[in-house]
């Protein structure tokens, strides 16, 4: 592939499934590990497709698809291990699945039945962040905490941890992200800034966010930046392992720009046909992150059709569980939400909860009277 925009990225597996050498980075794992990555990517894609379908059926309020970004997510999260900690944006579904988040639970946020459902401390994954770029500062602070806990820069590599934080190309325009770069550099914080450059911030192309390749910004802040083929799971894993290793050893932050493409819409509310061409999307389809791994593993003999069939069956099972689980998620109750606004809520808040409960109790004997057709018609006329 000759593309001037990406001629300086790290690639170890071509879109045709051919493994290639890079002077600085190499993938150290086995074919069995690669097969594990393929499995994660395929399951994540199926989960994502299922969630998109659920939104189309009206069962979710919104869904931000991860379609096309599976290699960037699976490759990078597979470079983490305890006591590392991960701060996601809101599209890191493959990352969440890898870290053990239940796929049905993950939908609660998007179905509107709960806020963010998982226990972040236990899962090693912070809550999804929906205000763009804010989580990069949280990640740097957490990394400063690792430093103070003595979990960084030790001679014993196993005693060291680092922080991974995910964000997108649009986020790099945010003040918070730039401040995070500055704080991380100043304190030599053990953090890896993992930017999935999927080419678009909703409709705005990367050219509107940056006049230079994003990874080059790092040098201005005083730490290394690397661009990697974000659709190459091996290259992503190799580059992220290196960056996390640097961070754990006490050498500070790295910016990784994973050059990828959002194959789907920004969210299910978006219509990408209004701002990008079919040709462009087709070109990226040829660089699909999954097919190249499958091609490689089939040709190397590490997997066969039976393996793929078994994976397909697992996908079906996952899809069914997600479909059934989503629609049976327990409904929230407003009165419960007063309990977790602050610790020790004052009288003012508790009175509001009691007022609400008293009001609701008033309907016990008198069923609610939803506005009827006649009222709707009258209102329609009045407006």
């Amino acid at each position, binding site marked *: 592939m000759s593309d001037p925009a990406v001629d300086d990225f790290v690639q170890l597996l071509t879109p045709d499934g051919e493994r290639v050498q890079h002077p600085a980075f190499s993938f150290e794992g086995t074919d069995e590990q690669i097969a594990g990555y393929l499995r994660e990517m395929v399951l994540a894609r199926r989960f994502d497709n299922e969630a998109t379908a659920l939104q189309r059926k009206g069962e979710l309020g919104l869904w931000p698809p991860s379609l096309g970004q599976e290699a960037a997510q699976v490759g990078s999260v597979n470079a983490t291990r305890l006591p590392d900690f991960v701060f996601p944006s809101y599209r890191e579904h493959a990352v969440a699945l890898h870290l053990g988040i239940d796929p049905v639970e993950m939908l609660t946020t998007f179905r509107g039945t709960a806020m963010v459902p998982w226990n972040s401390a236990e899962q090693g994954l912070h809550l999804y962040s929906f205000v763009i770029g804010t989580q990069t500062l949280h990640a740097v602070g957490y990394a*400063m905490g690792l430093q103070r806990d003595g979990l960084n820069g030790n001679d014993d590599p196993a005693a060291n941890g680092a922080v991974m934080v995910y964000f997108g190309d649009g986020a790099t325009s945010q003040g*918070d992200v730039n401040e995070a770069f500055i704080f991380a550099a100043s304190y030599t914080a053990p953090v890896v800034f993992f930017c999935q450059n999927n080419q678009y911030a909703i409709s705005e192309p990367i050219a509107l966010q940056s006049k230079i390749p994003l990874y080059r910004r790092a040098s201005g802040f005083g730490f290394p930046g690397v661009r990697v083929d974000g659709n190459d799971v091996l290259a992503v894993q190799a580059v992220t392992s290196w960056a996390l290793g640097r961070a754990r050893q006490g050498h500070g932050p790295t910016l990784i720009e994973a050059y990828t493409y959002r194959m789907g819409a920004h969210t299910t509310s978006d219509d990408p046909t209004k701002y990008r061409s079919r040709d462009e999307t087709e070109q990226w389809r040829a660089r699909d992150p999954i097919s190249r791994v499958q091609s490689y593993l089939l040709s190397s003999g590490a997997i066969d059709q039976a393996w793929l069939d078994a994976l397909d069956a697992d996908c079906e099972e996952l899809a069914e569980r997600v479909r059934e689980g989503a629609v049976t998620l327990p409904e929230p109750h407003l009165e419960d939400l007063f309990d977790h606004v*602050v610790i020790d809520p004052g009288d003012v808040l508790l009175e509001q909860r009691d007022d609400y409960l008293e009001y609701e109790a008033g309907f016990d004997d008198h069923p609610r009277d939803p506005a009827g057709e006649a009222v709707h018609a009258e209102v329609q006329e009045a407006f």
Partner: protein
Amino acid sequence: MATMTVAKALNAGLRRALEADPKVLLYGEDIGKLGGVFRITEHLQRDFGPERVIDSPLAESGIVGTAVGLALRGYRPVVEIQFDGFVYPAFDQIISQVSRFYFRSHGALKMPMVVRIPYGGGIGAIEHHSESPEAYFAHTPGLKVVTCSNPVDAYWMIQQSIASNNPIIFFEPKRRYHEKGEVDTEIEPMPLFQARVVKPGDDLTLITYGPMVRTCAEAAIAAAEEGHDIEVIDLRSLAPLDMATVIESVHKTGRAIVVHEAALTLGIGAEIAARVQQECFFALQAPVLRVTGYDIPYPPSRVETSFLPDLDRVLDAVDRSMTY
């Protein structure tokens, strides 16, 4: 007992909090060698080291955002915002992040963070250095907002705030930093979120907080000369509000005036007035009045004495209420 200024009491309280819990960190601009622009953290970096008393790069959102991460890792960051008017770059982190982790995680994540903000006017400063932004924060679910008015409260409330697992916005009345008082460092302090009756009285209740407590106490003394027996309440906590203390007082006096430096419209006074009329409707002998800053940006300092509530403006309102 020791005689301390408000500033010194805050410094002593911070020192005691640093001694009590190794997870407590102080974090902000110029707080290390310089000891902060108001010297509230003087000598604390010298005595506790730069890993615990941390000079930050000059970016408020960065300070609060990274403090979030430190809190998630189990630390108890005490952030200093240099001046009231410089907190707004950190507004998103405070409003959308700090205040909501407990809610968003359904109670799993606590955010034990204190954001210290010197606030209020009356010091002849240039713009952005005399503001009273407390209502923004008190309006935000998930935040607790407190303010001290004297050395005793400064000493104890800062320690109580640091010990709390809630995020707390801690407003310090900068024009009162140098006022002195006797501080007993061995007593059991009153609860953090409880209002205090500064001076009891039967005729009218002055409800105030922070820098205006002293002004109102002076007004109560002046009014006594005219035969009015004024009760003064220092709210101390703006979120949550200790309405029980306020309501009990207004039931007794039948008259209430709220005094603050912040602008009138939708300020703390509006909330107090709404709740007082709801709870004390039949006890009221006059409408609830407010004596506040005007709804203009903080003015040039040469006219700030006209802008800020003072003894005469409070007494004028007392007269209007008493003769209603």
